[in-house]
C-alpha cells in the first residue's frame, strides 16, 4: 500500500516522516530534477510505503515542487494521503487541503503541533473539522510522537474502505454560481463519462491550467467552448478564474476555522515574535547575522571541520597517527633532529663532491650549513666539521612505533598487504597511488561536509535560514543570486566542495545553478599556497596579492551573475520572493542528524565516482610515459602529462605563460589546487617542497615575468576547480549538460580575464603585442557589452516591437 505524505513547508512534515519510518528510509532525487525524494516503510508495518512529497503551499503549476507533487498524485494514484497541517496556522495550511480533497483520494488530516496549541490555550474542535471536511482528523505532535498510532490506524482504514466504495466525493463546494460554471465545464469536457479525478480536472479547466488541458487532450472545439463560459463568468464578477477559485477556497476555510478554532483570550506576544523582534531588528540584524555566520564558518572551516578533514587526509590517508596522540611530541622532536642531521650530511657530501676528494679524506673539511624554517627564513647557521658529518650521517630515521601506540595509514597498510601478496608493480601502484589516493580525496571531505550540513540543518530547522534570505536579498538579487547564496560563497572561502553543497538550501533552481557556477571563484584554502608561491616569488610576499585574489574572486562572481542573468539560459520571470518566515523553534536533533547524514552520503554517491576516476587518470598520465619505451617513468618530465603539457602549452602563450611547466602544474591542480606548488617543485627537480615553495622561487623568476606570474595566478584562481568540486557541481546540477556548461564557462572566463590582464599589462609596460592587444580589446568590449546589454526578456520585447512596427 502506498501513502503520500503532503503538507506545507515548515509544517513538521520531515519530523513526521522520520518518526513514521525511522531508519527505513531511502533518499534520492525525483526523476530529472534536483528536488530530494524520500520514501520509506512504516516502522510497524513494512507493507506500507510512505512517499514524502515536497513541501508545497499549493498544487498550482508554477514551481518544480508543485509539479512533482501534482504528477505523482495524478499518475501514481497513491492509496491514501496523509495531509499534515500546522495547527497553529490552520488557515493557510488548509488551503492545500482543499486542493487535495478535489483529487478524491482517501485522505487523513493530521493536525500537528498539539503541544504548542495546548500551551497557548487555543482549542480546536476536531469533530467539527472532521464533519465539515468529511475526512478523519487526528491531533498529533510530530515532535513528541503523540497521536502517531491513531494516525497510522486511520490511514490504513481509509485506504482500505475507500477502495470498496469509490463513488463517494469529499470535495468542498464553492458558491453556487461557481459550481454551476463547473458543471457546465464538466458537461462539455466529459459529456456523460465519469473520469478519474473529475472534480480536480473540472476546477483545473476552469483555472485554464494548460498542463491539465494537455493531459486531458481535449479537442479545440471543447477548449474554446469552455473558454467562452469562463470568460463570460470572469467578466461578470470582474476577476480572473484563478483568483476566483483561490478566493473561494480561502472563504470556505475562513468559515471553517471560525467554527472549529477557538483562540484563547490571552493575547500574548509569542516567544517566536520576541526572538524575531531582536533577530531581524533593523539595527541588530546585521551584527547578529555576522555572528551567526562566524560560528558556521568557525565550526565547519576553522575548527572541527578542518581538524577532522586534516586528520583524515594527513593521518589516516597519508602518514599514520598516534592513538590519542601519545608519543607524538617526542616523535616529532626526534624527526626534527633527524631532519637537521640529514641536511648537514647532505651539505657536507655536496662539498666533498665539489672538492673532488674521497669522503675518507675530508677530515679537515669545514662546512657552513644554513638551516631554514618552513617558510624559507634562515633559522640557524651551523658549522659542521668531519666529526659532525659522521655523526649526522649515522643518524637513523626514527620509527614511530617506538614512541607510542602507532597506527599506520591506510595507504601504508594496503602497501604492506600488496607487498606481501606479491602483486605486480603496476597493479600495486595503481591501487596505492591511484585508487586509494582517489578514495582518500573523497573521504577527506566527509567530516567537514558533515559538520557544515549539521550547521545548515540547524539554521534551516530553527527558522533562521529564511531570515538570512530576508536580510541579504537586497544585495544578492542584483547579481541574479539569492540571499541564501551568501552561505555557499562564505563556505567557499574554506572549501568549494561544501560550499557548492550548501547551495542545496536555495529553493529556486535558477538561483541555485547560478550560485553553484560562481561559488568556486572565491579563493578556497587550497588556493592559498598558490597565491603564496606567486606572491613570494614575484611580489616580495606582499599581503595585497592575497587581498587582490579575494577581490578578483568577488568581481568574478558579480560579473558572472550579471552576464549570466541576461542570457537566454537564465531568462524568465524573476523568482518571486514571497516567502514564509516560519516561527522559530528548536529542531529535533534526530532530524538534524539524519538530514546531515543523508546529504553527506549523497555526496559520496554522486560525486565520488567522478573524483575517483579523474584522480586515477591524472595519476596515470603523470606516472607513465616514454623512457626507453612506454612504461612507468621515474622522471615526471618524461610522462604523458609532460607531453600533453608541451603539446597544449601554446594555448597559454597569449596569457603570458606558455611553457609546459605551468601547463602541467595547472592540470595537476585539478586534483587539488595545492598540487600546483608541489608539481612546480617536481618539475624544477626539487623534492619535498615547502607549502609556499620558497625553494623554487629563483627558478620561477627565470621562467616568468611578474606580469606573466600574476596572469598565471589569475587563471588558476578562476578556471575549473578541483575534481572534488566538479563532482559536487555534478551532484548539485544533476545534469551533465549543466555541469559541462559550468566548467566551460569557468575556463572561458578565466582565459579571457587573464588574456585581457596580460595583454593590457604588456601595453602599459610599453611592449605591446599588436595581435594580442587587439584580441584583448575585442574581449574587453565584449565583456562590457554583455554586462550592459538589456536582459533577454527586454531584448525579446524589443524584437517583437520592431517586427510589429514593420507591419
Amino acid at each position, binding site marked *: 500500500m502506498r501513502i503520500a505524505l503532503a503538507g506545507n513547508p515548515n509544517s513538521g512534515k520531515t519530523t513526521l516522516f522520520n518518526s513514521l519510518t525511522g531508519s527505513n528510509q531511502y533518499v534520492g532525487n525525483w526523476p530529472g530534477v534536483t528536488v530530494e525524494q524520500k520514501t520509506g516503510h512504516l516502522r510497524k508495518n513494512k507493507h506500507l510505503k510512505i512517499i514524502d512529497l515536497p513541501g508545497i503551499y499549493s498544487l498550482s503549476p508554477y514551481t518544480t515542487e508543485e509539479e512533482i507533487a501534482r504528477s505523482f498524485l495524478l499518475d501514481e494514484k497513491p492509496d491514501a494521503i496523509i495531509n499534515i497541517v500546522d495547527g497553529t496556522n490552520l488557515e493557510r495550511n488548509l488551503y492545500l487541503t482543499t486542493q487535495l480533497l478535489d483529487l478524491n483520494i482517501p485522505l487523513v488530516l493530521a493536525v500537528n503541533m498539539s503541544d504548542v496549541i495546548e500551551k497557548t490555550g487555543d482549542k480546536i474542535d476536531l469533530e467539527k473539522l472532521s464533519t465539515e471536511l468529511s475526512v478523519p482528523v487526528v491531533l498529533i505532535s510530530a515532535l513528541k510522537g503523540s497521536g502517531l498510532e491513531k494516525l497510522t490506524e486511520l490511514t490504513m482504514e481509509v485506504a482500505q474502505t475507500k477502495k470498496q466504495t469509490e463513488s463517494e466525493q469529499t470535495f468542498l463546494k464553492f458558491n453556487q454560481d461557481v459550481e454551476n460554471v463547473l458543471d457546465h465545464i464538466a458537461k462539455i469536457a466529459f459529456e456523460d463519462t465519469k473520469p478519474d479525478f473529475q472534480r480536480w480536472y473540472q476546477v483545473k479547466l476552469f483555472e485554464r491550467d494548460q498542463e491539465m488541458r494537455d493531459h486531458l487532450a481535449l479537442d479545440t472545439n471543447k477548449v474554446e467552448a469552455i473558454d467562452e463560459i469562463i470568460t463570460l463568468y470572469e467578466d461578470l464578477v470582474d476577476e480572473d478564474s484563478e483568483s476566483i477559485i483561490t478566493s473561494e477556497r480561502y472563504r470556505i476555510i475562513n468559515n471553517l476555522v471560525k467554527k472549529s478554532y477557538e483562540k484563547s483570550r490571552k493575547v500574548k506576544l509569542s516567544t517566536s515574535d520576541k526572538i524575531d523582534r531582536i533577530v531581524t531588528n533593523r539595527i541588530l540584524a546585521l551584527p547578529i547575522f555576522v555572528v551567526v555566520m562566524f560560528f558556521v564558518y568557525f565550526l565547519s572551516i576553522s575548527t572541527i571541520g578542518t581538524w577532522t578533514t586534516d586528520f583524515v587526509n594527513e593521518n589516516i590517508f597519508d602518514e599514520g597517527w598516534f592513538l590519542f596522540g601519545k608519543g607524538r611530541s617526542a616523535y616529532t622532536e626526534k624527526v626534527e633532529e633527524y631532519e637537521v642531521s640529514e641536511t648537514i650530511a647532505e651539505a657536507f657530501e655536496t662539498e666533498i663532491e665539489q672538492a673532488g676528494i674521497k669522503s675518507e679524506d675530508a677530515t679537515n673539511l669545514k662546512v657552513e650549513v644554513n638551516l631554514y624554517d618552513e617558510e624559507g627564513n634562515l633559522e640557524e647557521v651551523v658549522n659542521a666539521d668531519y666529526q659532525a658529518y659522521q655523526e649526522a650521517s649515522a643518524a637513523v630515521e626514527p620509527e614511530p612505533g617506538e614512541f607510542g601506540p602507532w597506527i599506520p595509514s591506510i595507504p601504508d597498510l594496503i602497501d604492506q598487504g600488496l607487498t606481501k601478496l606479491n602483486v605486480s608493480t603496476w597493479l600495486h601502484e595503481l591501487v596505492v597511488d591511484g585508487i586509494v589516493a582517489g578514495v582518500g580525496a573523497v573521504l577527506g571531505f566527509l567530516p567537514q561536509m558533515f559538520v557544515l550540513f549539521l550547521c545548515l540543518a540547524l539554521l534551516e530547522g530553527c527558522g533562521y535560514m529564511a531570515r538570512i534570505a530576508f536580510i541579504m536579498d537586497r544585495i544578492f538579487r542584483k547579481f541574479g543570486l539569492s540571499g541564501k547564496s551568501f552561505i555557499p560563497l562564505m563556505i567557499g572561502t574554506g572549501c568549494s566542495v561544501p560550499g557548492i553543497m550548501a547551495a542545496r538550501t536555495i529553493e529556486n533552481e535558477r538561483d541555485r545553478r547560478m550560485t553553484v557556477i560562481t561559488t568556486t571563484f572565491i579563493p578556497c584554502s587550497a588556493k592559498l599556497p598558490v597565491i603564496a608561491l606567486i606572491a613570494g616569488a614575484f611580489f616580495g610576499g606582499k599581503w595585497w596579492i592575497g587581498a587582490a585574489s579575494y577581490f578578483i574572486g568577488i568581481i568574478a562572481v558579480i560579473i558572472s551573475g550579471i552576464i549570466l542573468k541576461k542570457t537566454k539560459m537564465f531568462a524568465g520571470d524573476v523568482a518571486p520572493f514571497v516567502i514564509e518566515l516560519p*516561527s522559530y523553534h528548536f529542531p529535533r536533533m534526530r532530524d538534524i542528524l539524519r538530514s546531515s547524514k543523508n546529504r553527506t552520503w549523497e555526496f559520496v554517491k554522486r560525486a565520488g565516482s567522478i573524483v575517483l576516476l579523474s584522480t586515477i587518470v591524472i595519476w596515470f598520465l603523470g606516472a607513465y610515459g616514454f623512457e626507453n619505451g612506454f612504461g612507468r617513468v621515474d622522471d615526471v618530465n618524461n610522462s604523458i602529462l609532460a607531453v600533453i603539457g608541451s603539446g597544449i602549452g601554446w594555448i597559454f602563450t597569449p596569457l603570458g605563460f606558455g611553457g609546459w611547466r605551468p601547463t602541467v602544474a595547472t592540470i595537476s591542480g585539478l586534483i587539488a589546487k595545492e598540487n600546483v606548488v608541489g608539481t612546480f617543485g617536481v618539475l624544477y627537480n626539487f623534492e619535498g617542497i615547502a607549502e609556499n615553495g620558497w625553494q623554487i622561487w629563483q627558478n620561477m623568476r627565470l621562467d616568468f615575468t611578474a606580469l606573466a606570474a600574476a596572469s598565471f595566478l589569475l587563471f588558476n584562481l578562476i578556471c575549473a576547480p578541483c575534481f572534488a568540486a566538479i563532482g559536487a557541481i555534478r551532484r548539485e546540477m544533476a545534469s551533465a549538460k549543466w555541469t559541462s556548461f559550468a566548467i566551460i564557462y569557468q575556463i572561458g572566463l578565466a582565459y579571457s580575464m587573464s588574456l585581457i590582464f596580460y595583454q593590457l599589462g604588456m601595453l602599459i609596460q610599453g611592449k605591446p603585442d599588436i595581435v594580442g592587444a587587439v584580441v584583448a580589446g575585442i574581449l574587453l568590449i565584449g565583456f562590457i557589452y554583455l554586462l550592459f546589454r538589456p536582459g533577454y526578456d527586454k531584448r525579446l520585447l524589443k524584437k517583437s516591437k520592431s517586427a510589429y512596427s514593420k507591419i
Partner: protein
Amino acid sequence: MAISDNKNLRTLRDIPVGQTAIVKRIHGSGQLKRHIMDMGITKGSEVLVRKLAPLGDPIEITIRGYQLSLRKSECEIIEVE
C-alpha cells in the same frame, strides 16, 4: 499593466510599518499573482506591515496569522484600502 495607468492607486508598498490594510485586488497575472494569492493574500484579507529588512527591502507582513516576506516591487501589484 493596469497599475501604471493609475498612479493614485494605493498599494501595499504605500503602507507604513506598523499599519494594517485590507486587500482590495491583486493586479497582474501569472506566477507571481498566483503565488501571492496561494499564500493567502486575497481580496478582503487583512495585512499588517510588520517591518522592513535591515537594508530597506524586502518587507515583512502578517497575513492570516503568519509571517510572510515580500519585495517592495512585489507589493506594487497588491492594491489595498
